[in-house]
C-alpha cells in the first residue's frame, strides 16, 4: 500500500471519558456538604479525623500495593474515597491509632487480599467499621457536641432504645435531626447535607436511584408498621429515617459498586432488604442502630440478587 498504515481496531472507536477516578472525585464532592456540617457541629476534631483517615488510607494503599508487588492504583482515588467515607462513620473523638487500624483493614482485608478493586465481595469500609466496633466499643462511641449547649451524650436512637420514646423531645426535634444538630458519627448527623450529596451522585450517574430509594422505602415501610401497631412506644417513620445512619448508608455505603447488585430489580430488592433489616435491628436487636450492619449482612446476598436479570430485548 502506498499510504502509511492506519490503525485498525474493533468497535467502539470512541470512549465517553468516564473513569473510576472521575467517579471517585464526584463521590468525594458529594460527601463535602456532610463533612462541612460535621466540622460546624463537632469542631476541629472532625477535620482531624477526616484528614487522618484520608491520608492514612492513601498511605496504606501505597504501602500495601508496593509490598504485594501490584501496580500502583492510588491515582484512581478509591483509597482516598474509602478513607473519606470511613471518616464519616467515626465519632469525632476517634483516636488516631484507631483510624489507622481501620484504614489498614479497609485496604488490606477489604480490598487487596481479594485481588484489588473490583474483586472485593464486601465493602471494605464496612469490614473495617465492624472490626473497630467489635474491638473498641468505647472509642467508637465518644460523642461531643460543640455548636450550642451540651445536651446529651447519647444518640437519638440510644435514647429511643434505652430511655423511651417520650424522652426524645427533651433533647431533639425533627428539625434538629434534619439539619444535624445532634449526636452521632460525624458524617451521619446531617440528613440535609447527605441528601444534597446523594442527589448530586444520582444526577452525575455515579450511583443509580434504585438502592437509596428502596432502602428508605424499606425503613419507612417497617417502621410505619411498628408505629401504626404501637404509636406509644415506637417512633414514627420520619424519625427513623432521619436518626442514625440511614441516609449515609443508603447513599454512600450501600451503593459501593463491587458489593452491591447491578441489575435494577436486584438493586431494588437489595435496598429494600437493607431497610427492613435496619428496622429489625433497631426494633429487636442489641444495637441501637442497624443501618451499617444491615448493609453488610445483605451484601452477602449480592451474588444471588445478581441472578435477577432484566428481561432481554426479544426474549
Amino acid at each position, binding site marked *: 500500500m502506498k499510504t502509511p498504515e492506519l490503525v485498525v481496531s474493533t468497535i467502539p472507536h470512541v470512549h465517553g471519558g468516564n473513569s473510576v477516578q472521575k467517579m471517585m472525585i464526584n463521590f468525594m464532592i458529594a460527601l463535602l456538604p456532610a463533612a462541612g456540617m460535621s466540622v460546624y457541629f463537632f469542631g476541629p476534631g472532625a477535620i482531624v479525623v477526616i484528614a487522618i483517615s484520608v491520608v492514612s488510607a492513601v498511605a496504606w494503599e501505597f504501602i500495601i500495593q508496593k509490598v504485594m508487588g501490584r501496580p500502583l492504583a492510588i491515582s484512581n482515588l478509591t483509597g482516598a474515597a474509602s478513607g473519606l467515607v470511613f471518616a464519616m462513620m467515626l465519632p469525632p473523638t476517634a483516636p488516631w491509632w484507631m483510624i489507622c*487500624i481501620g484504614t489498614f483493614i479497609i485496604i488490606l*482485608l477489604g480490598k487487596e*487480599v481479594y485481588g484489588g478493586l473490583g474483586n472485593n465481595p464486601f465493602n471494605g469500609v464496612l469490614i473495617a467499621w465492624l*472490626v*473497630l466496633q*467489635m*474491638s*473498641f466499643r468505647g*472509642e467508637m462511641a465518644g460523642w461531643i457536641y460543640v455548636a450550642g449547649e451540651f445536651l446529651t451524650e447519647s444518640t437519638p436512637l440510644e435514647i429511643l432504645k434505652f430511655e423511651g420514646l417520650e424522652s426524645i423531645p427533651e433533647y431533639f426535634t425533627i428539625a434538629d435531626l434534619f439539619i444535624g444538630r445532634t449526636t452521632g458519627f460525624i458524617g451521619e448527623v446531617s440528613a440535609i447535607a447527605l441528601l444534597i450529596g446523594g442527589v448530586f451522585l444520582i444526577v452525575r450517574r455515579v450511583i443509580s436511584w434504585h438502592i437509596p430509594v428502596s432502602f428508605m422505602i424499606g425503613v419507612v415501610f417497617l417502621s410505619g408498621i411498628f408505629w401504626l401497631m404501637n404509636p406509644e412506644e415506637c417512633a414514627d417513620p420520619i424519625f427513623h429515617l432521619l436518626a442514625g445512619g440511614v441516609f449515609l448508608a443508603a447513599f454512600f455505603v450501600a451503593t459501593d459498586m463491587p458489593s452491591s447488585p447491578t441489575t435494577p430489580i436486584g438493586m431494588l430488592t437489595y435496598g429494600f432488604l437493607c431497610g427492613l433489616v435496619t428496622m429489625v435491628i433497631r426494633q429487636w436487636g442489641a444495637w441501637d442502630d442497624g443501618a451499617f450492619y444491615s448493609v453488610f449482612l445483605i451484601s452477602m446476598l449480592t451474588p444471588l440478587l445478581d441472578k435477577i436479570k432484566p428481561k432481554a430485548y426479544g426474549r
Partner: protein
Amino acid sequence: MASIVKEFTKGLWEEVPPFRFVLGLCSVLAVTTSMSSAIGLGGGVIFVTVMSNVLVSALRKVIPDKVRIAVFIVIIATAVIIVELTMQAYFYGLYEVLGIWIPLIVVNCLVLGRAEAFARKQSVILSLADGLGMGIGFTLSLAVVASIREIIGAGTWFGIQVMPAIYPGFTYLLKPPGAFVCLGIMLGLMNVVSARLDAKKKAAA
C-alpha cells in the same frame, strides 16, 4: 532412620495439618484465644495421635477392613478419655477452660485421618514418628495462631502482659470472626512462603 526423620519432619512444615490439609479447624478456631489453652489442647492431641497411630499400626494386620473405622474410633476414644481424665486430675483449670473441646478430639479429622491414611499401612516406628510429627505440627500451628491472637488481641502471652499497659487490646482477634481472619491470613502466608521456596528450589535446580 532417614525415613523416620522424614515422617517426623513432614508434619512440621510440608504437611502441617491445619494449614496444608485444612484439618482440625474447629479446634484451631475455638481454643486459640490464649496460649495456655492452645498448648493444653495441643498436648492432648499429640498424645492421642501418637497413641492411636501406634495402636492402629500395631493392630493393622489383625483389624478386618470392614470394621476398621469402628476399631479406630474405639482406640481414639479411649486415648481421648485418658487425656480427659488426666487433665481433670492434674490440670483442672485447663480442663475447665477447654471444656467440650477435649472430648471433641475424638472427631478431630486429623487423628482419624492419620490412622486411616498412614498408620493402617505403615510400621509401628514410622507411625509413631508420623503421629508425633503431626501432633507437634498441629500444636505449633495452634501456638502460632494463639500467639498472634493473644498478643495482639489481649496484649498478653501465656497470661503475662507483654505489651505496654497503654495498649488497648485489639479484641476483634479474640472473637470468632477474628479467628477466621487470622487463620485465613496464616493460610495465605503459608502459600506465599512455600511458593517462594519452591521458586528458589527450581531456580537452584
